[in-house]
């Protein structure tokens, strides 16, 4: 307990940064992932191929490598000037972590959304067309409600994974929960206990999300 209480000035900002990383990249990857999923189910073959290529490449790349690229290699390209990210090194690494997490997670979000849309039988769309619903009506009152129910539980899994993946940023100069122990060791504190507190923090965050997911799965499963 002492390690936690004596170093609240480390744990507080560390956990706060973790949550911030998680929330921003969660929103980012949900948006980008949905756009990718739209590409993957588009009627135009070229668009489908583009989405599929992105997902295949990213899903088979280690996240650490993506981080590596954005933290170390990307600045060499000077695609955007350093000032765009707030100027300081810390804010650059934070933005690099956001880019890495968002680009990586969106591939998985895309797969979840796509498989959710695929769970809706084609007959549902045909039936709604037979009833005379317009495309918009069919989408909003028949297809999307069913797809959402199928999507939410695996999406929570993906978000849990994203939350845990934020710790990789510790290796790339972003101060967050994962980097608390390195700072503790500079103060001569016991690293093991320090790390165990970090683990406890993640358990406290992840277990409720898992429970939420299980209850959603039970409540929302569609009887077909």
């Amino acid at each position: 307990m002492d390690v936690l209480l004596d170093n609240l000035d480390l744990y507080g900002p560390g956990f706060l940064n973790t949550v911030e990383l998680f929330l921003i990249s969660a929103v980012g990857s949900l948006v980008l992932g949905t756009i990718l999923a739209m590409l993957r189910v588009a009627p135009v073959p070229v668009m489908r191929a583009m989405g599929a290529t992105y997902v295949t490449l990213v899903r088979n790349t280690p996240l650490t490598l993506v981080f590596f690229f954005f933290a170390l290699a990307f600045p060499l390209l000077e695609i955007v000037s350093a000032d765009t990210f707030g100027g300081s090194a810390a804010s650059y690494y934070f933005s690099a972590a956001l880019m890495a997490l968002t680009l990586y997670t969106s591939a998985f979000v895309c797969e979840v959304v796509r498989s959710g849309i695929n769970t809706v039988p084609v007959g549902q769309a045909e039936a709604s067309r037979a009833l005379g619903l317009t495309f918009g009506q069919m989408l909003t009152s028949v297809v999307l409600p069913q797809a959402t129910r199928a999507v939410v539980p695996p999406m929570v899994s993906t978000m849990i994974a994203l939350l845990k993946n934020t710790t990789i940023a510790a290796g790339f100069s972003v101060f967050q929960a994962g980097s608390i122990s390195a700072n503790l060791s500079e103060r001569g504190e016991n690293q093991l206990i320090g790390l165990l507190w970090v683990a406890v923090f993640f358990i406290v965050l992840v277990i409720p999300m898992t429970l939420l997911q299980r209850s959603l799965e039970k409540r929302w499963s569609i009887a077909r």
Partner: protein
Amino acid sequence: MSSVLFDVPGPRARLRHRLYAVLAVAVLVGVVGFVIFRFAESGQFDGRKWTWIQYEKVQLDLLGALMNTLKAFGAGAVLALLFGAIFAAGQLSDHKVIRVPSMLVVELFRAVPLVVLIFVFHYGLSLGAPFYSVVLGLTLYNGSVLAEVFRAGVLSLPRGQSEAAYAVGMRKTQVMNYVLLPQAVRAMLPAIISQLVVLLKDTALGFLITYDELLDFARDIGSYFEFGRPLIPVTIVVAVIYISMCLLLTWLATYLEKRSRRDKKVVELEKKPAEDVVAAAV
């Protein structure tokens, strides 16, 4: 193509789709072209930045780094499969004394980020060589996920399978070993292999505790001034190696899935084997 979202296109829609295709290709060529242009502009394709690849010493180092990655993967995969099998059996046990602790262990290691786990072993417990921390972390995390995969597979077998086995007089262990496990493993093989892809990707975390695997090699070579700090060329090479290794495993999974769909001996699972377990392969 008929899907839930789109009707079979008529002549006008086909024309429109062709227009969209042209636009999409234009955007793609624009983006990729810009990236390649920036790569070339900032001198990433200069001869000097690629000379490192010609040196025998560097090639041997690359091979060594690749071997280290594969070593961590091999050890981690075998141990994780073992761990998964043991704890899946524990979770399915009829005895509360065994079931509850196994569930707690599996939930615990699934909830803690792998990075934190590896840090605990390396910095917290000082296990010595980074290899041990990496393998132990990979084993515990992926083993727990695999335990869930095995468990979901066994639970989603039709009930008649175990009932029939009990009816011919098998014991509990026999039912599990001879009837349930072989079928569950076969049905879950694609999910198991995609978890192994995750394990292979996660070996790159060894980089964070200076285990000299592929990514560590990339950083070393990338910092050489003699070669003009070829960070981007070396990242491209390493990325190609990682992606092709993982793609090979993914293809194996798809091949097995297709084969098992043809195979009449494979039992259809009753319910979908816990989608979240399969989808969580992130």
